[in-house]
C-alpha cells in the first residue's frame, strides 16, 4: 500500500468532518448537562460505577449485546433483529476495520479522523498480500451485510406487516431526513469504493462493480463526485442526528451504564429520564402493544409519542398523554431499550401543583383497627373488592373451610392501600396512607397478611415496611394450604384461561403462583399473549382522563386474546379485572378464590354422598 496524496487531504472530507465534529460536540455537551442534572448522590454513584471493574465488564457486555447485536430484538422478532444488527454491527466493524487498515498501512495518519472512513480513496494498492486481501474481503463482507439490512429497512418502510408489525411510528420531517441520509450512506460507499477499486484494491463486491463501471465510465474523473456524495450523506446524517430518533444510538450507550449503576427516574424530564427519552428509537413496538391503541384516536398517546413530545417540549400534549395512560406497563415490557413509560408519566403527574392537598397524617384510625383477637392471620380485601363482594365472600369461605383463624381487616370498611394515589402522582398522600395502614397492621399483632387484590399487593409488597409480618398474595397462601393438606379441592373439569392482572403480573413479576393454584383446582389454558405480554382489561385505575365508556373496545380486545385459548371460562385474580370483564364477557369470568371455593363445595357434596 502506498499513499496517493502527500498531503493526505482532499476537500471532499469536509462535510463528514463537520458532521463528526458537530455530533461529538453535541454529545459531549449533552453528557455534561445530564450529569449536572442528576442529583448529587446519583451522580456520585454513577461516576463510581464507571471505575468499578465488574460494572465496567457488565457495561461493555450489555452495550455489545444490545447496541450492536440487538440480542433483545432478535428474541422478539428475528427479521427486525437481523435488520438492526446487520446495520449496527456491520457499521461498527467497518469503522473498526478501517482503523486497523490505517494502523497497518499508514500508522502516522491515524490522527486524522477521516482517514479510516475514506481509506480507499487515499491509498493505492501496489502489492497483493494475503493480509490485505483478508482485510478487503472483510470490508466488502460487512458492507454487503449492511446493504442487506438497508434493503430490509426499505421493505419494512413500505410494508411493515412483513415484519410482523401492524403499525409503526409516523416519522417526523427530521426523522425522514435522517432516515434517507442513512439509507444513502452505504450504497454511496459501495459506489465510491467501486470507482477506486482498480487503484486501491477491493474484493468480491467492489472489484466486479469496478469492472462494470469501467465499461461505460472509463474515466477516473468520475471518482471524486461519488466520494463527495458519500461524504455529504455522512455529514447530513450526523448533523441531523441529534434532532432525530437516531439520537438513540449515542443515548443508549449512556443509558446502559446509568441503569447498571442503579439510577432511576427522579424527575420527569431531567437526568436519567432525559437519557431514557433520548434512547427511544421510535420503533413503535409499543404502539401495537398498547391496549389503548385499539382505538385509532389513542395511537398518538403511546410511549413513543410521549418521548417525541417530551423532546419537542410540547407541554400540552405531554400532560394529555401522561393523564390518559392506563399504566398497564406493557410498553415497558416490550420496549427494546427499556424506556419506563409508566414511570415517566407518573413523575409527570407528580409535578402538578394543587390548591388543596389531602392530608391523612392526622387521621384517627383507632375506629378502623381490626377487632382484637388471637388470630395471627389478617385478611385485607382492599377497597376495590367492595364492588365485587363475591371475592371477599369466597376468600373468607375458603379460609373458614381450611380452619384458618383470621380477621378480616376491612370488612366494615377501611383505608385505601395508597396505590391509586400513587398512580395519580400523589406520592406524599400515598405515603401518609401507607403509614396509617402500617400502624393498623403492626398494632394488630398479626404475623401474616393475606391480600386478594393485586393493586394492594403491589404497594404492600414494595412500599410497605411491615417487620415481622409476611405479606402474601392469596394465590400463594391457598397453594400452601392445599400443599399442607388443609384444603382438599376436587379438580374441576372446566378449563380456565388465566388473565394476568397488570399490577401483580408486570407490576410484581407474579406469574407462576396463580397458575400453580389454578392448575391444582381446574383445567388451565394459556392465551396467545400472556404473562408479561398480557393485555390490560381496560379497567385500570392508572388512567386519569379515560372515561369508562371509552374503554369498552379495550376490554373486548383483551377478552378476544383470552378467548383465543379456547378455554371455557376466564380466571383472574383482580377485583377490577373481574368487574370489567363481567360487563362484556360472553364466557363466565371468575376470581381464583371463587373457583377454589367451588372446588371445595363439590368436595363437601361428595363427602356427603359418601357418608349418606
Amino acid at each position, binding site marked *: 500500500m502506498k499513499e496517493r496524496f502527500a498531503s493526505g487531504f482532499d476537500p471532499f472530507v469536509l462535510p463528514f468532518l463537520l458532521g463528526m465534529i458537530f455530533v461529538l460536540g453535541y454529545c459531549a455537551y449533552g453528557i455534561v448537562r445530564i450529569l449536572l442534572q442528576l442529583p448529587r448522590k446519583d451522580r456520585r454513584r454513577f461516576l463510581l460505577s464507571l471505575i468499578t471493574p465488574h460494572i465496567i465488564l457488565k457495561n461493555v457486555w450489555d452495550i455489545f449485546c444490545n447496541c450492536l447485536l440487538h440480542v433483545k430484538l432478535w428474541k422478539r422478532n428475528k427479521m427486525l433483529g437481523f435488520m438492526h444488527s446487520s446495520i449496527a454491527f456491520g457499521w461498527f466493524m467497518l469503522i473498526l476495520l478501517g482503523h486497523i487498515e490505517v494502523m497497518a498501512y499508514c500508522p502516522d495518519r491515524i490522527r486524522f479522523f477521516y482517514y479510516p472512513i475514506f481509506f480507499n480513496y487515499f491509498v493505492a494498492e501496489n502489492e497483493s498480500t494475503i493480509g490485505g486481501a483478508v482485510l478487503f474481503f472483510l470490508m466488502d463482507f460487512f458492507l454487503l451485510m449492511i446493504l442487506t439490512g438497508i434493503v430490509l429497512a426499505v421493505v419494512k418502510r413500505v410494508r411493515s406487516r412483513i415484519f410482523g408489525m401492524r403499525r409503526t411510528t409516523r416519522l417526523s420531517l427530521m426523522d425522514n431526513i435522517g432516515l434517507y441520509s442513512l439509507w444513502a450512506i452505504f450504497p454511496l460507499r459501495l459506489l465510491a469504493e467501486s470507482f477506486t477499486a482498480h487503484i486501491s484494491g477491493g474484493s468480491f463486491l467492489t472489484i466486479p462493480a469496478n469492472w462494470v463501471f469501467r465499461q461505460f465510465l472509463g474515466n477516473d474523473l468520475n471518482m471524486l463526485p461519488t466520494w463527495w456524495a458519500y461524504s455529504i450523506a455522512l455529514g447530513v446524517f450526523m448533523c441531523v442526528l441529534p434532532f432525530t430518533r437516531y439520537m438513540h444510538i449515542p443515548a443508549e450507550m449512556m443509558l446502559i451504564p446509568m441503569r447498571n449503576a442503579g439510577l432511576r427516574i427522579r424527575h420527569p424530564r431531567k437526568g436519567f429520564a432525559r437519557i431514557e427519552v433520548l434512547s427511544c428509537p421510535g420503533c413503535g413496538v409499543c404502539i401495537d402493544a398498547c391496549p389503548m391503541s385499539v382505538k385509532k384516536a389513542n395511537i398518538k398517546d403511546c410511549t413513543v409519542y410521549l418521548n417525541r413530545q417530551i423532546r419537542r417540549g410540547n407541554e400540552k400534549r405531554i400532560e394529555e398523554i401522561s*393523564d390518559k395512560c392506563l399504566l398497564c406497563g406493557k410498553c415497558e415490557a416490550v420496549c427494546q431499550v427499556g424506556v419506563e413509560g409508566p414511570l415517566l408519566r407518573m413523575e409527570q403527574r407528580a409535578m*402538578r*401543583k*394543587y*390548591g*388543596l*392537598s*389531602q*392530608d*391523612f397524617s392526622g*387521621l384517627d384510625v383507632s*375506629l*378502623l383497627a381490626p377487632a382484637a383477637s388471637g388470630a395471627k392471620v389478617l385478611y385485607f380485601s382492599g*377497597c*376495590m373488592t*367492595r*364492588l365485587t363482594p363475591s371475592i371477599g365472600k369466597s376468600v373468607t369461605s375458603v379460609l373458614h373451610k381450611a380452619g384458618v383463624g383470621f380477621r378480616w381487616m376491612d370488612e*366494615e*370498611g*377501611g*383505608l*385505601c392501600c*395508597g396505590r*391509586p*394515589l400513587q398512580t*395519580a402522582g*400523589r406520592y406524599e*398522600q400515598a405515603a401518609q*396512607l401507607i403509614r396509617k395502614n402500617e400502624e393498623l397492621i403492626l398494632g394488630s399483632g398479626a404475623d401474616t397478611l393475606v391480600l386478594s387484590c393485586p393493586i394492594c399487593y403491589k404497594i404492600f409488597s414494595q412500599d410497605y415496611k411491615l417487620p415481622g409480618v409476611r405479606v402474601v398474595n392469596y394465590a400463594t397462601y391457598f397453594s400452601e394450604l392445599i400443599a399442607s393438606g388443609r384444603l382438599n379441592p376436587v379438580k374441576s373439569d372446566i378449563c380456565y384461561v388465566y388473565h394476568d392482572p397488570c399490577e401483580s403480573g408486570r407490576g410484581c413479576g407474579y406469574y407462576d403462583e396463580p397458575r400453580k393454584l389454578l392448575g391444582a383446582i381446574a383445567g388451565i389454558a394459556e392465551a396467545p399473549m400472556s404473562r408479561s405480554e398480557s393485555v390490560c382489561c381496560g*379497567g385500570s*385505575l392508572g388512567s*386519569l*382522563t*379515560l*372515561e*369508562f*365508556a371509552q374503554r369498552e373496545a379495550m376490554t373486548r380486545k383483551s377478552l378476544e386474546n383470552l378467548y383465543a385459548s379456547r378455554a371455557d371460562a376466564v380466571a383472574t385474580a383482580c377485583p377490577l379485572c373481574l*368487574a370489567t370483564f363481567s360487563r362484556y364477557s360472553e364466557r363466565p369470568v371468575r376470581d381464583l378464590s371463587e373457583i377454589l371455593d367451588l372446588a371445595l363445595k363439590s368436595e363437601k357434596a361428595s363427602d356427603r354422598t359418601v357418608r349418606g
Partner: protein
Amino acid sequence: MPDFGFSLSKSSSVSLDSLDLGLYGELERLEPGVKTCMACGSCSAACTASVWSGMSVRKLILNLQRGKDVEKMLGSCMLCGKCSMVCPRGINTRHLILSLCRIYKKQ
C-alpha cells in the same frame, strides 16, 4: 340570649343571588360532565372514605352548586376511583376531584 336548652337551627335556605359559584363555574368549564350528575348517590354508596369521613361525591357536587364549603370532604378523598366506575352517567369523578383540588383556593 338565654340558654333554653334548645335553639333554632340555622336557616338552610340558599340564596342563589348572594352565592359565590365561582368554584362550581370553573369546575363546570374543566369537567363538563359534572352537569349531567343526577345526584343518584351511587358514588356515595361506593365510597371507601365515606365510612370514616362523611365523604360523598354527590353531596360534594350539591354543596358546590349551593356555594357551600367542601374542603373537609375533598380533603378525605383517597382517589380510589370506585365512584367513577359506578357512575351511571359515566362522569369521571376521580378526575373531577383532582381538577377541583387543583383549582381550589384556600380561604
